């Protein structure tokens, strides 16, 4: 055991040492560069330590299947954080979708038989997604119309949604999901799990919405300075509403992934994800105060923690030792960032880093 601990200490020191040096040379968007780097470093480290287990295709596939649901939930939190808010209810919303789909499916199945249930599947899934969207809209209502601070509003709805799910299921785990979903969990295209592909698609879509559409820009500005946004004729209500609806939508998709990984739904699934995704979002370079975030950074952060988790498993380190590593990485990254920015005050440009800024010179 102890020699693995040394290995652990060793990797941390190595990572941090090499890193700050390399960071100087990496001029990618805040959050993206460092995560890409960290991902590569951790991956190589574990690959070298336990090639047999870690590089085993089964392991790689499993990572590709496990990461997406967390990735989607992280993106859901990210967009809320982009407006200076946060969404603690993402897991509850995801479960809401999963439970809806699963129970509707089984209900129809019992009433009219499997075939019928499969026939209704598309509609059922749609309803499930709709539930997620509605829950998100309720968050949006609380935040934008009632004016409750997001962290409190969503803390409340987290409990509420979770509680309602408990009431609905009576605490029992319900089994059953449309075969389309079930098969989705297992299949892969060109060796890449379908779930991974779904995550990437959603991420690209979200990135486009945030950076290339008026509403996306408004969301960013809302986070950067709500007052100035209002004085620019941007309606906080519609922006915030949109934000939390999107958050609900992404959570709903995550809920579908829950089902596709395992055809059952319960009120308690994923409770341990809530704070984990916040960690991921921040590691991904999102500014907790709002105004800046990169989708790519969040994706990389998700993968990095996934890799570290499996790596620790391969090294036979315990869940608690992994928790320690997670904390160390989080703080390590933040500190290194800070040190880096202190050195270059003017390099910091929250806002639109991830797209080239036109200068008169260019024209």
């Amino acid at each position, binding site marked *: 055991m102890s020699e693995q601990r040394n290995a652990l200490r060793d990797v941390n020191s190595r990572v941090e040492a090499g890193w700050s040096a390399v960071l100087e040379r990496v001029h990618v968007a805040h959050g993206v560069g460092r995560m890409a780097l960290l991902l590569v470093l951790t991956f190589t480290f574990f690959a070298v330590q336990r090639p047999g287990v870690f590089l085993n295709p089964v392991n790689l596939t499993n990572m590709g299947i496990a990461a997406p649901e967390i990735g989607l939930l992280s993106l859901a939190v990210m967009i809320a954080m982009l407006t200076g808010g946060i969404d603690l209810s993402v897991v509850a919303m995801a479960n809401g979708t999963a439970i809806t789909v699963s129970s509707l499916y089984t209900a129809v199945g019992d009433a009219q038989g499997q075939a019928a249930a499969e026939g209704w599947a598309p509609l059922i899934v749609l309803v499930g997604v709709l539930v997620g969207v509605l829950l998100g809209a309720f968050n949006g209502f609380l935040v934008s119309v009632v004016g409750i601070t997001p962290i409190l509003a969503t803390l409340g709805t987290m409990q509420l949604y979770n509680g309602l799910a408990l009431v609905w299921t009576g605490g029992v785990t319900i089994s059953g999901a449309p075969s389309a979903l079930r098969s989705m969990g297992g299949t892969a295209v060109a060796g890449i799990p379908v779930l991974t592909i779904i995550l990437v698609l959603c991420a690209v879509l979200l990135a486009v919405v945030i950076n290339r559409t008026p509403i996306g820009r408004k969301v960013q*500005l809302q986070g950067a300075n709500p007052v*100035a946004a209002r004085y620019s004729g*941007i309606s906080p209500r519609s922006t915030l509403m949109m934000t939390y609806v999107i958050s609900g939508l992404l959570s709903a998709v995550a809920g579908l992934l829950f089902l596709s990984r395992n055809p059952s739904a319960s009120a308690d699934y994923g409770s341990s994800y809530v704070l984990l995704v916040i960690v991921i979002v921040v590691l991904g370079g999102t500014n907790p105060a709002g105004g800046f975030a990169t989708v790519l950074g969040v994706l990389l952060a998700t993968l990095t923690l996934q890799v570290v988790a499996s790596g620790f498993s391969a090294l036979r380190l315990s869940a608690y030792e992994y928790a320690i590593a997670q904390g160390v990485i989080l703080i390590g990254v933040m500190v290194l960032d800070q040190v880096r920015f202190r050195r270059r*005050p003017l390099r910091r*440009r*929250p*806002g639109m880093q991830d797209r080239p800024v036109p200068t008169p010179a260019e024209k």
Partner: protein
Amino acid sequence: MAPSAAPVLEVHDVVKTYGGIHALNGVSLELLPGEVHCLAGENGSGKSTLIKIISGVEKPDSGTVVINGRTHRHLTTGDAIRSGIQVIYQDFSLFPNLSAAENIAMLSELADRRRISSRSRIRAAARRVVEDLGLRLDLDADVADLTVADRQLIAICRALVNDAKVLIMDEPTTALTHTEVERLFTIVRRLQERGVAVMFVSHKLDEVLEISQRVTVLRNGAQVASGAAADHTPRTIAKAMTGREVSDERLVGEVPPDAPVLLELDRLGRAGGFSDVSFALRAGEILGITGLLGSGRSEIAEAIFGIHPADSGTIRVAGTERRIRSIRDAVHAGIGYVPEDRLTQGLFLDVSIADNMIAASLDSYRARGGLLDRRRVRDSIADLFRRLRIQAPNVGAMVRSLSGGNAQRVVLAKWLDRKPAVLVLNGPTVGVDIGSKEEIIAILREQAAAGMGVIIISDDIPELVTACHRILIVHEGRVVSELTGDEVDAHEIQRRMAA
């Protein structure tokens, strides 16, 4: 009293760079007891930075600060304060969540290295200063609930609560009316008698010359002039600051008599704010609205822009009546607004200049598929950047890194990009140096000439005179008089405002 020999404060060729930019490039000056030393310079010329260095907020790259003959290598704010240096910061640096009294007294409490804080002592200390200055301030109100002017007064009181040896004022008068400025100056003179050395930063050159004995002018962080105030006129200082001739003569183009009416207020009113305000603004016209602080001039603007909607009367924009209940209504009706409080209401400080510029007109760039048309975005940004002559490395720079003059141009650009029918500007040149001021007004003239209707709310009378076709004077929420054509003249306005 005549300044005595030994300087209380000396600065020896201080150099300060921020990421390559020379904020200060070998500046030296000395401050004698009982003298008022004025620091002039355009936005971004280095005034605030110099002040931050003297007060220990920023460390110089090289050069030294000598206080009472003692040379400080690593001057901390604490040291500075304890050795009698008091600063009124440009942004006031007040605590919005604390009472006025505590804001005023906190500094002395800290300076006295106290451990226990006593309400009574704090209130007493605060009241002493406030009464000393003959001000009326609600000492128990949270600063968050006070007006910009009140906040500025509180910042001044705070600086005076400790008997300071050196008093530094970074644009202390931007939000003050003449009466208040006069009051401040009497205080300054009284302090002078007590042998306090005062350093005074202002963009209002007539003020500068009225109060100071010595003038130092900075340009791009370098000292370009330093000498007795007596040897200077506003013109000479302006020339030193900008390196060119600056004119403030009144030039207003003709408004064609058949120009369409763009904005029409009919007996507009808001309980507790103003009442019965009626006027019409025609295309190409620049209308000035002035009055004492609290006269309701800002409230009129805020009603037009839907911040605090009017509760009686009607607003017609380009002939059609508009219900303006929110800012969105106003914006959609074709009204733009450049707010008084640039930093919090006008700008996204941590967002690039480029994205600030299109903040109000995002929807107009929607191309097919709902995506932004990035070529058009790029073009109009580059165009505005050039037209408004914004000094910045490129449009990707954070607005936080701009000085007031440039920051204000960005706010302007944001609205120009939306091409509103009517543009309302509240204190458009507050804290903006004459160079930028002249250019900003020139831009407004252009826009008016191009058919926009412009309303300027300001208490900078010379500015109004140079720019406006017509000037309304507001008193206690009512328009008490209107000056047009040749009536528009500084003294006439003064006279009617006093009346």
